[in-house]
């Protein structure tokens, strides 16, 4: 970094000072404000900071923070790795991440789906990992078909970039398939409601039953699932040499995290880290920015699950304690959550029947109307604490969307 122009060095230094002040003021980790100041002083700062490093961009609707963390952990044998561990996944966050690790040769950057083209252009990242696309916060997010189209154009213009992509997701496959090189990973797709039509021609997709490693093809055109080099099968991954790699040691729960782990293994293999070396490093990750954390409160053990959209709720249901284990749900509709709560009707809540369910959050009445229509018994509480104190001492699963999750996490201890 010492060969940065003077203006860029100044931009980095001022950004760092601003970030520190923001932290001291208790306003988060400061990575956004730091990066914003840096970019204002030097608009090409991201390009300069990315120069001569090997970077991975990680993008998806769900799982990008977790997968970024898994990849970063598995890359430690290569030396220092720069990363935006706090989920600041836009260029301001990328600038902060790279500026704070000036000597790191490697970087793993979580990237908001919309920003993939810009960040790819500015960083020339050598690797891009693309995992899944589904409906998410429609009042502010881009339409996903359009988004995948932008990925296609960006990858076509970046011939030096290799892609690791989930070929079980048809829209991701379409978005990735203009890259000059792709490693296809059959990483599974559980939410299918956004992929019944061919992204190429709009024709009907014929899809095999089974949530993992199941084939699909367009009935009208040539577009079909590519042959995967890596494939997730339940609790193990098969690598390109046909070796079975057990994922039993992964601490993060559920099929979504086995899928994230499969992608991480394929990414680090590209940098020469073999699965047997990567696996124990993946197993060290126990919670990610408070997700999957358990907190103790008044004899209750709360496990915090973040779910922001229908596909995410499906994954959260997958890791619940078996019925009749109690569940507390909390939904807000502030800016970061999406202000439109219609998506609650895309989630099939019937799985919650037969267990105590507590409903809280600013939009608890929306959730109550939804659960009532699904014939789920529930109790509405005005304050989340009432839910906690209503269950007997023991385990309580908590599913919340973004700001509701942050509220609960702040209240019961910020365990990272």
């Amino acid at each position: 970094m010492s060969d940065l122009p003077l203006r860029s060095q100044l931009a980095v230094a001022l950004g760092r000072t601003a970030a520190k002040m923001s932290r001291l003021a208790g306003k988060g980790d400061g990575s956004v404000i730091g990066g914003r100041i840096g970019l204002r002083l030097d608009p090409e700062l991201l390009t300069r900071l990315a120069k001569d490093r090997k970077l991975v961009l990680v993008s998806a609707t769900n799982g990008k923070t977790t997968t970024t963390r898994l990849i970063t952990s598995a890359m430690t044998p290569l030396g220092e790795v720069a990363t935006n561990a706090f989920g600041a996944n836009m260029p301001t966050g990328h600038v902060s991440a790279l500026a704070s690790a000036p000597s790191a040769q490697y970087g793993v950057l979580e990237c908001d789906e919309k920003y993939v083209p810009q960040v790819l252009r500015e960083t020339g990242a050598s690797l891009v990992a693309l995992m899944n696309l589904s409906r998410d916060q429609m009042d502010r997010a881009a339409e996903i078909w359009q988004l995948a189209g932008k990925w296609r154009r960006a990858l076509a213009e970046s011939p030096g970039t290799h892609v690791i992509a989930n070929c079980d997701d048809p829209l991701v496959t379409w978005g990735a398939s203009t890259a000059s090189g792709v490693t296809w990973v059959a990483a599974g797709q559980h939410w299918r409601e956004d992929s019944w039509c061919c992204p190429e021609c709009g024709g009907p997709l014929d899809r095999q039953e089974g949530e993992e490693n199941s084939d699909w093809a367009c009935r009208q055109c040539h577009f079909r699932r590519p042959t995967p080099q890596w494939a997730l099968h339940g609790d193990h991954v098969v690598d390109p040499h046909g070796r079975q790699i057990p994922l039993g040691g992964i601490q993060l729960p559920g099929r979504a995290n086995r899928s994230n782990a499969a992608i991480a293994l394929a990414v680090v293999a590209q940098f020469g880290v073999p699965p047997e070396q990567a696996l124990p490093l993946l197993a060290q990750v126990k919670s990610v920015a408070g997700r999957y954390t358990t907190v103790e409160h008044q004899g209750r053990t709360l496990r915090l699950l973040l779910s922001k959209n229908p596909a995410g709720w499906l994954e959260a249901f997958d890791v619940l304690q078996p019925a009749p284990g109690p569940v507390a749900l909390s939904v807000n509709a502030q800016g970061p959550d999406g202000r439109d709560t219609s998506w609650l009707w895309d989630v099939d809540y019937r799985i919650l029947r037969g267990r105590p369910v507590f409903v809280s959050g600013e939009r608890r009445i929306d959730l109550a109307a939804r659960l009532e229509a699904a014939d789920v018994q529930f109790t509405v509480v005005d304050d989340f604490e009432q839910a906690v104190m209503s269950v007997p001492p023991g385990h309580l699963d908590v599913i919340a969307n973004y700001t509701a999750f942050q509220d609960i996490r702040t209240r019961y201890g910020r365990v990272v």
Partner: protein
Amino acid sequence: MSSDRIKIVWIYPDLLSTYGDQGNTIVLERRAQLRGIATETVHLRSDEPVPPDGDVYLLGGGEDRPQILAAQRLRNDGGLHRAVQNGATVFAVCAGYQILGHEFGGEEGQPVPGLGLLDIRSYRGQTRAVGEVVSEVASELNVPRVTGFENHMGATAIGPNARPFSKVLSGVGNGDGQGFEGAYQGRILGTYMHGPALVRNPALADLVLSWALGRDLPPLPPSWSERLREERLSAVLSAANGQT
């Protein structure tokens, strides 16, 4: 008694169901069943022919490209036209609302032909309308004030054969400068409101059911939907008053 069963056809959820549109289907089924009316629901994929014998047809919201595909397929299929000729009820939201009209704006703003079942014309507006919407329903429909959430680039002008569904109190609605939200013509009703609209507005759900069954329906005990409607109306209208 005209019928104690009802057939609901949800048109093309594989193309048009981006905004929780399933909720409208669920709430119609539920409010019929609570009155002892049996329901049959068809989730019709876009590669299947539209059955002409449905009582209610539902169309939801979608992205530009799926909207164009859905319009093409419904035009070629012709089943929805036959159903409407037979007196079927249609309830359509957002992209589905636009499809029912004579034309709508495509992804580059180009005019795309619609189905011509509802006398409206839609086109690409200047800015995206995103947010809560509250409106006063046309008095002849006998439905109290409605609440929903809108998210659309398109604007819609109502022709002489259709009538405004409601007058906007807060939000944008049709966005053609007339201050209306939605349109209806006979038993075809279109709106920009998700929420979903029939969940948030039980009286509107009952209007759709009564059109489909051809008779008035006995009231149901209040549900969480009524609470939701009241909460949304007061949250939105108090915020709107606070601004002025």
